[in-house]
């Protein structure tokens, strides 16, 4: 098998600025800072104080010495927590940004799909946008013309082809955008989390199309997603990234399992796996199942499951509620909240308990995501915090009569006599 992508020691650093809150640099600020700096320096010299230079910039390595090879018709899932460097890696491979160090080589045409509908213009009609978006994705005019009917067919918007897309519903917009991308012809396809769009039915269709493209046409695909279910379905190999480094490579199932175990170590929740606007106020610290907090938790299906979540709250909040979500193979099964309604929470430690009745979960591997919300009226909108799949556990194979013949589905509802 031939190597089509070869990544050698790629690193990417960004400069983080601490001064000022605005994201943009203005020339006037640069000049003002220089003047201020000079002033402080002279003042310190005059008053004989030590001259201290405050580090206003910090280097941050988003990717750190990443190397791997991709064979032809491999379908690689890139997995990692937020900030692990997945998107940076895709951006470098799509040539949107240059690596700071290292190099990569590719064979064949690369098409990247980091977003659906890049270049779409609201004033233009669906027809016009198909051509425009096709060109943006690197298709030739003749190519788009040839596939035009298929694209329209896939998008299910043929009735509105000559309507400006600003009048489209968001579902139609996304369908059209994805349809164009789905007919991209290239040897290598780089895809960021774009399948999580549209309604469930269309998502399924997109996923099916992606599978077609990657499996039957033998194309090489690099795919980023937070949805382990999609990764499992689509990819044959996985790369696990953590803080800019590759921690693991291997078969998808293996890597997905490793990934789910990175959320916590012996019940101590890894802070880097939690994200959201509430992060400064809420810290989730420990999670345990039936008092167990090891990396390998097994529970009998005939036992009630009690999930305990501990954390620290740094500020009084009016309308707080937290909860857990149970997932199997990346598919969310259900959630449970600690309270039926949001409640005030005081500064300090908190702990919540969640119960899953016995016999609900069937034997197999599960994971738990944790979350918290605050929709207080002293803030705009809902603030949130989310820890994706921070803990895994296994329901043991010891379920006899109820489990086997007569039940269908992923889990059972408890029988209320």
């Amino acid at each position: 098998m031939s190597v089509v992508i070869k990544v050698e020691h790629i690193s990417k650093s960004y400069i983080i600025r601490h001064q000022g809150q605005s994201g943009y640099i203005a020339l006037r600020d640069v000049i003002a800072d220089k003047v201020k700096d000079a002033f402080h320096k002279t003042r310190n010299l005059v008053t004989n104080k030590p001259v201290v230079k405050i580090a206003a910039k910090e280097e941050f390595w988003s990717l750190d010495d990443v190397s791997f090879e991709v064979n032809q018709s491999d379908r690689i899932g890139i997995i990692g927590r937020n900030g692990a460097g997945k998107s940076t890696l895709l951006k470098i491979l799509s040539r949107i940004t240059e690596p700071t160090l290292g190099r990569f080589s590719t064979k064949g045409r690369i098409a990247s799909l980091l977003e659906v509908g890049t270049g779409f213009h609201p004033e233009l009609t669906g027809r016009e946008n198909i051509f425009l978006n096709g060109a943006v994705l690197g298709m030739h005019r003749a190519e788009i013309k040839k596939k035009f009917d298929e694209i329209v067919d896939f998008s299910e918007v043929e009735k509105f082809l000559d309507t400006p897309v600003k009048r489209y519903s968001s579902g139609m917009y996304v369908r059209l955008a994805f349809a164009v991308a789905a007919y991209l012809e290239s040897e290598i396809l780089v895809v960021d989390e774009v399948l999580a769009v549209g309604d469930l039915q269309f998502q399924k269709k997109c996923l099916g199309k992606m599978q077609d493209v990657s499996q039957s046409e033998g194309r090489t695909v690099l795919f980023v997603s937070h949805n382990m279910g999609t990764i499992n379905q689509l990819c044959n190999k996985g790369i696990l990234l953590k803080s800019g480094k590759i921690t693991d490579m291997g078969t998808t199932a293996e890597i997905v399992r490793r990934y789910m175990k990175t959320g916590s170590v012996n019940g101590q929740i890894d802070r880097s796996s939690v994200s959201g606007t509430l992060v400064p106020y809420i810290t989730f610290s420990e999670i345990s199942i039936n008092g167990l907090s090891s990396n390998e938790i097994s529970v009998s299906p005939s036992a009630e499951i009690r999930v305990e979540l501990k954390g620290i709250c740094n500020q009084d909040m009016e309308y707080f509620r937290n909860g857990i979500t149970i997932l199997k193979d990346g598919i969310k099964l259900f959630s449970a909240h600690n309270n039926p309604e949001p409640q005030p929470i005081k500064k300090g430690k908190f702990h919540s308990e969640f119960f899953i009745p016995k016999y609900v979960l069937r034997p197999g591997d599960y994971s738990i995501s944790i979350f918290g919300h605050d929709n207080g009226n002293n803030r705009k909108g809902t603030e949130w915090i989310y820890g994706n799949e921070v803990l895994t556990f296994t329901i043991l194979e010891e379920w006899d009569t109820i489990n086997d013949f007569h039940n269908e589905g992923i889990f059972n509802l408890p029988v209320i006599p």
Partner: protein
Amino acid sequence: MAEIVNEFDLVVEPGRSVKNYWNDLWRFRELFFFLAWRDILVRYKQTAIGLAWSVIRPFLTMIVLTIIFGRVAKLPSEGVPYPILVYAAMLPWQFFSTSFSDASNSLITNTNMLTKIYFPRLIIPASTVIVNVVDFLISFVILIGLMLWYHFVPPWQIVFLPLFLILAFLTSMGAGLYIAALNVKYRDFKYIVPFVVQFGMYISPVGFTSNNIPERLRLLYSLNPMVGVIDGFRWCIIGGESHIYLPGMLLSIGLIIGLLTFGIWYFRKIEKTFADII
């Protein structure tokens, strides 16, 4: 091992992108046309406003300038109707000023594309300038109307007009590329552009001819590259007494080439970091 490496048709490492750049620019020519096509479509989509705007704006400016410089200040008209004298200069000036400001802002308005798709970034400002060529052609229709109204027959030099249009194009590209790149880095440049454009109109020979400038200052005056372009336009459209001041013209052309080279060089230098800092 060495043979395998040679098989790859693309190798990216820091600082190496230079090699494929001009090739890529050619490969992405279709995107360039599509972007220009998009901007033209969008501009004239709200047809009434879009089309009327490229007619009304130069027309009203022409009237105001004619009244101020022709009637109030009573500057010499060199034997042609003052409106034609003014309009012949308005065309390149309008073209330059809108292309320049559009190109300067083009990267910011297309942020989305810069951070999601790879293509030679030069395409974006270039395609915005192309859109203004269309605007220029529409405004040109007014000039024809004025000529008919005043029974004015243009001289033979008019065949050289496209050359000076190209010159105006290069000027706005040079200045536009430079400011567009700076604009990504320092956001407050967007406040400087309108000022330059407004100020430039008064120091360029738009409302009057360069013949009003004392002979000894002509060369100094030509340091403004638009002086050469506008004089060229007047020479093509009016002819007659509107001679070209050759040293000034050569100086302007030299400056335009310099500006363009510098603009491209600076743009290329910053380009690699656009996606990171925008």
